[in-house]
């Protein structure tokens, strides 16, 4: 639903950037001489995507210079309608691998490394798939990377859910060298889990919502079976989703708002939802409207959160002087003013409209 904030033009840009993020990740992999890339689930938003989207994604993945291992997650489970079973995937490039089961995958250039995926076969697994895998693993001297998807019990508010990943069992397996790194997907914020420093949510490479922490990143992981485990977040995308609450009580607040909006970089990839609180006169309200109208032309999205906004607009004496109404127009003004003060939102809007029309009239 996040994209509902975006205009059609910004929505197109957002979709395109998500494709281009793949190419960026490929470039980062090349720049940092990564051996391979794993995507820990939710490669796609859904299994019900158009061929165009799948084809473009695969085409972008094809250009990545290293092997890419894709794990089916809860959004794109490996069920009977899985996108990974489509004809497009059957003819995907050789560097693209789907972790369709828990068999180890190896790459020639890393003979001492194996990658094991824990794919979601359905949207609603009935058990902790990760633990199910770990119970079958033996300790190994090879570097074993497990790629899994889902919430860990440490972070989940509902620990009773059957598919929740039992963190303790993973950490125990790490200690037993049954695996050496658990690459997790599902959480859009880049997040280390536990104390081992070997369990990470990489986060979304392209931010998708307002409540994400440190999104737009991928993790560069340097790893061996013994001691080395270095994780470095790398920026991929510049999309930003900001939710803000702004107090407006006068011209100073307007200046602060303008300054804050001005300092935001890459405005065309920034979506803002903002709520206001305060009490202003018509002139200030009109100025606020103007600031918002102007800024909306710059940002991918700039929306007022009406539900959270509590901005009292009350005409001041300055407003009255400003509009300089006489005769029946003044009588109308006074009636609307009284109704607005009595909490009639339509009267308040009418008053603001009158103020605006009066100012837009030739003088």
């Amino acid at each position, binding site marked *: 639903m996040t994209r509902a904030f975006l205009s059609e033009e910004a929505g197109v840009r957002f979709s395109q950037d998500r494709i281009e993020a793949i190419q960026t990740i490929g470039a980062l992999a090349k720049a940092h001489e990564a051996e391979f890339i794993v995507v820990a689930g939710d490669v796609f938003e859904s299994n019900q*995507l*158009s061929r165009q989207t799948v084809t473009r994604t695969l085409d972008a993945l094809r250009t990545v210079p290293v092997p890419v291992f894709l794990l089916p997650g809860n959004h794109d489970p490996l069920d009977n*309608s899985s996108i990974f079973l489509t004809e497009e995937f059957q003819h995907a490039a050789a560097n693209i691998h789907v972790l369709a089961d828990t068999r180890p995958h190896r790459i020639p250039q890393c003979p001492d490394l194996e990658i094991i995926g824990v794919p979601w076969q359905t949207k609603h697994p009935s058990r902790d798939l990760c633990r199910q895998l770990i119970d079958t693993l033996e300790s190994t001297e090879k570097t074993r990377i497990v790629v899994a998807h889902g919430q860990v019990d440490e972070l989940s508010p509902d620990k009773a859910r059957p598919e929740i990943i039992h963190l303790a069992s993973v950490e125990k397996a790490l200690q037993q060298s049954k695996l050496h790194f658990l690459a997790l997907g599902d959480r859009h914020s880049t997040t280390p889990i536990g104390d081992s420093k070997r369990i990470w949510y990489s986060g979304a490479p392209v931010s998708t919502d307002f409540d994400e922490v440190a999104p737009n990143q991928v993790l560069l992981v340097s790893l061996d079976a013994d001691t080395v485990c270095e994780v470095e977040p790398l920026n991929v995308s510049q999309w930003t989703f900001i939710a803000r609450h702004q107090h407006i009580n006068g011209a100073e607040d307007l200046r602060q708002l303008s300054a804050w909006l001005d300092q935001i970089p890459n405005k065309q990839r920034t979506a803002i939802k903002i709520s206001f609180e305060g009490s202003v006169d018509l002139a200030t309200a009109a100025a606020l409207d103007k600031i918002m109208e102007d800024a909306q032309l710059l940002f991918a999205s700039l929306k007022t959160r009406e539900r959270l906004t509590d901005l009292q607009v009350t005409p001041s004496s300055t407003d009255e002087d400003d509009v300089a109404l006489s005769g029946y127009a*003044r009588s109308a003004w006074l009636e609307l003013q009284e109704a607005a003060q009595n909490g009639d939102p339509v009267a308040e809007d009418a008053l603001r409209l009158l103020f605006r029309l009066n100012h837009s009239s030739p003088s």
Partner: protein
Amino acid sequence: MRLHKLSLRNWRGIQHRDIEFDDGVTLLEGPNEIGKSSIIEAIQLLFSELDSSNKKQVKSVQPAGQDLGSEVSVEFSVAGYRITYAKTYNKNRSTTVHISGTKNLQETGRSAHEWVAKLLSEQVDMDLWQTLLVDQGEQISQIKLSSSVSLAQALDNVAGATDATSLEDETLISAAQREYERYFTLKTGRIKYTELIDATEQTRTRLAELTGTMQQLEQDQNQQKMTAQEVERLRMALPQMQEAEQKETQRWQKLQEKTAALTSKKQTLAEIENQLTRTLETIQSRTALVTQIHDQQNASAQFNHEIESLKQNLLQESKTLDTLNSGLAQLQDEEKELRSLEKLARADLTHLEKKTQLTQHQKTLSQIESIDRELNENLSAISNIPVDAQALAAYVQLEQTLAVAEAKAQVASTTLTLTAKKALPLIIGDQPIEISEGQAHKFSVSKALHIELPNQLDIEVSPPESTADLAQQQQQAKTQLQALQAELGVADLQSATALARQRSDREADVQQLKSQQQKILQDLHTSEIEQQIDRLTKTCTQYVNNRVDTPSPPADTHIAAENVRQIEQKLTRLQTQIDRARGEYKAQETTTAGVKQALESKIAQNLAAKAATDALTVSLESQRQKRSDASLADLKEEQQKKAADLRVELDAIAEDLTQQNVDAQKLLLDNATDSAHRTTIELRQQEQALAILNDRLETARANGLHELLVKAETQLVQLQQELSATQRRAEAARKLWETLNHHRDAARQAYLQPLKQHIEALGTLVFGPTFQVEIAEDWSITHRTLNGTTLTFDDLSIGAKEQLAILMRLAAAQLVARQDGVPLFIDDALGFSDPQKLNTMGAAIAAAGRTCQIIILTCAPGRYANVGNAHLIRLTP
């Protein structure tokens, strides 16, 4: 705005004219075609048209036939500025403006035009200018003042409002109206953003459809998974089903083979049993044949015995029959003899009867002959008497006819009575008559009568001519009577009657004799009696000659009849005997025939028995030649043994099949077949369902349903936001528009009173102190009241309407003059007013002219003579 000076050059027919206007009333007086209306025209073109204008109305101001620029220059004051504004049209086009006062400014060209235009639009109510203008030649009517901002503002001020209505206010309400009309129609208030509402609803519907499709897709996925599992299960189960079916089929085939063997052996057994049955039947048949032969032989022997016995019986019965036959024949002979005697006796009797009959005929004949002689005698006598009853009747008839004729003649003739005085001899007619003395002798003269007294007198009497016929008739009757008398030989009726009586007596005798004769003869004729006598005579003679001698003939008929009776009695008795004997004979004959028939039957039976015996014997021998009795017995034993063996085998097989429970095995086979078949069909159905589901899932995947859903969700959110914002803006616009209108309408109501007061103040000068008007909401005059009489505006005279229209303008000009106002031009008006009204209208104009600028153009000298403060300018060529 105040006009101060006007200068025209080369303007239509005006070569050059300068006019200075008074701040109050300026009266421009001049004849027609002097160019009064050109003054107003020049000012209007100056304020509205660029010098570059090629409009027809601009070109038309160029002097005819002269290629000259038409110049107009106006000096006026407005908003604290004193402005000299000049333009040259059509030739040497130019525009200049010079502003003095609060600031000095010189502009030329288009900027000069735009500067003045902006100033006028902001500071001068040009609409009111046009409204107040009373143009030449137009009928003055009420003007629509309600759209005048200046007048409204002026009225507002006069009405005592806290702030004056400004031009900005009207601009504001126009803007509010435009804003309102962005969302609603002005007239009906209908929403205009229905497309947005529809688009939102359509998107909502589309989203609901897609959500439904997505839910269906999820159901399809679940169904596809279950179907795939079911297909897999069925694929696994099907070979097992087919294997089980195959095993059951094999078992069933073995059972079928055994069943077939059982059936085959049953058929063999049935055949053998049939053969055995036929053998036993053959043996039984042969045994029966021997028995039949034996029975036939015994029967034949019995028949022979019975035949012999019957032969004896027949012989005995035949003898009895012969005896009876002899007796019968004897009786029949006796009967024959007796019948001969009977015949003779009857012949004798007949002879004697014929003989008696002959005698009777002869006697009768004798009587007849006697009667004939007497009859002939009478007939002879009759023939000698000529008077019979008929002649007598004719005679009587003629006498009567004569008497009638004489009576008629006497009646019709002249009666002549001759009375003799003395005895006289007369000859009357031819008859001499002696008449005695005193005798009167009458004559009926029916014809000429000659009476002669001989020698003394001849008298000729002639009857009338009509009596001649009567006399002739009388004579004719007399003649006829005389002829009859002569014929009958009588002289008178008496003698005729006597003769007739004699004849009648004779005829009665004849009749009696004939009756006797008839009685004797009856139906016979004498000749017939004679013939019978001859025939009987011959017969009797012949019988006597031919009769046998014995027995002797009876003496008489009685004896003969007795003979016949006696013989008949004998015959009756004999006949009884004969009948009895014949019955006995018949019975015996029947008995004998029965014995004979029985004998013949037995003989036939015996022959048949013998023939049957022969045939049976031949058949038996024939069969024995084909198969002997011993061989047949051997065959029976052999077949019985085979049948017994087969039954043992069949029992064994049946027992085996019973043990294996064929029905149950068939049920198992059917169940296995059905299960495999059902599983096959089910698998096919599930595979088809799976293919359909896969196809639907693939189609849904290819359609990018998720993206469509996201897109629809996005569109809906955006449309809802847009609709919400639009509705909010629309409601605000409506609120503002309605509120502004409400207050403007209320304010306009307040304007009416000052306008009414100004009109009535001026009107009192014209119409007197009772003058009152009623003002409508659009500020038009609806009624005028004068001396207590109220008339609608339309009911007023043309002159009164014109006067009220001028007064309304004057009032409006007065009201707006307090805020600069606009000059009021009156071009050639009040043409319908009488001198008194011209006088009072002049006072009203003068009163108004104290506060506003009024410019009057007229071609009628003296029409405005009563405008006391007017600055008169006489226009001359």
